[in-house]
């Protein structure tokens, strides 16, 4: 499941015009996926996996909060929990933030209030803080989960009816 979530992140980055996505609390860790001119690297903990992607123009980095950048020529991605975190490169492009909505409890993920009903949110929808985005069922309690940030839904990361772990990203929002 963890690998699938990472694959989705990489795909999302490939298809977007942003360079980097960082998620805090991704299965209990901080994960950053960075798109370089010729490659994409994923770093999670100490395990590094390199995935080649097509050439892409360098666009502004995406980091949820202002951080100090430390980057060596050969290592552009690092585990922020263990090392000083990088800062967005200086660029004229407007900055974009991607923030995930994570599961606050273990349970089963439902996109709508009932099977025939319209999903709470779809890709492209603008979500404001406090809006119900999904239901997580735990102990036969259907818990409405509200957005804690505002933004546009860019990705739905979990299939309807599937179990989720605590902290697992459910949606990716562009803020």
């Amino acid at each position: 499941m963890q690998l699938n979530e990472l694959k989705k992140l990489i795909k999302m980055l490939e298809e977007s015009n942003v360079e980097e996505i960082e998620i805090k609390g991704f299965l209990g860790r901080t994960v950053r996926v960075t798109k370089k001119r010729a490659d994409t690297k994923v770093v999670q903990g100490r395990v590094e996996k390199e995935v080649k992607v097509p050439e892409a123009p360098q666009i502004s980095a995406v980091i949820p909060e202002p951080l100090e950048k430390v980057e060596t020529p050969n290592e552009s991605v690092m585990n922020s929990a263990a090392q000083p975190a990088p800062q967005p490169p200086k660029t004229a492009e407007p900055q974009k933030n991607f923030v995930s909505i994570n599961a606050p409890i273990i349970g089963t993920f439902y996109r709508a209030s009932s099977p025939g009903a319209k999903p709470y949110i779809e890709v492209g929808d603008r979500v404001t803080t406090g809006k119900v985005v999904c239901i997580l069922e735990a102990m036969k309690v259907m818990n409405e989960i509200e957005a804690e940030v505002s933004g546009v839904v860019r990705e739905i990361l979990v299939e309807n009816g599937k179990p989720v772990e605590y902290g697992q990203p459910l949606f990716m929002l562009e803020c």
Partner: protein
Amino acid sequence: MIGKKIYKFEKLDSTNDYASKIAKESAEGTVVIADCQSKGKGTPGKTWFSPEGGIWLSVILKPKSASCISLMASVAVYETLKSLKLPVRIKWPNDVMIKNKKISGVLTEAHGKNNAIVGIGINLNIPEFPNELKSVATSAMLERGKAFNKQKVINILIKQLEKKYSLLKKKKEKLLKEWKKYANIIGKQIKINISGELVEGKVKDIDDNGALMVEMAGGKVKKITTGTISAEL
């Protein structure tokens, strides 16, 4: 106070849906009852068979946390049916069973921070079930061969809900102890279906919110809050 205000209907789509609509402006403890429901809510994807003769009600609660509300309601139902001398048990997390057939189910919908709609269905005076439910459902009438006074049972249930909800708020650990005793699952080998995936292991413990701590093959312990138990050994 539970049952201070009661809305009664001959028919509703779903008592939970009606209660959800009026929850914000209603006092805690407001009850919605229907003689029958056309779209009674069960586990997502399933409707609850709700003909006349059963008890179909929803209670509006405003708890600080909804995490143990369904468990609390299942204990109230257990005590109610036990008082009718029915040999009931709780099947994790909150179905009330006679042998391997369901006589009652609870489904809670938590809206926002502190609005919880507790839906309770009890198969009371139901003389027969559709073929697809015959092997999995039973009623008090079928078990005892007689009809029960429905209003009297509703009154017992509301009193029990009041009692158990109060216990949950004041002494949660005591309520959980009762529930653990009636659910009787610790130490058992189980098979549980979680969204189509079958998980098997031994129940080592139950946490403070009723989640199962299941030891899988290899010794890893998995916390489970969702799914349907298909076998208890």
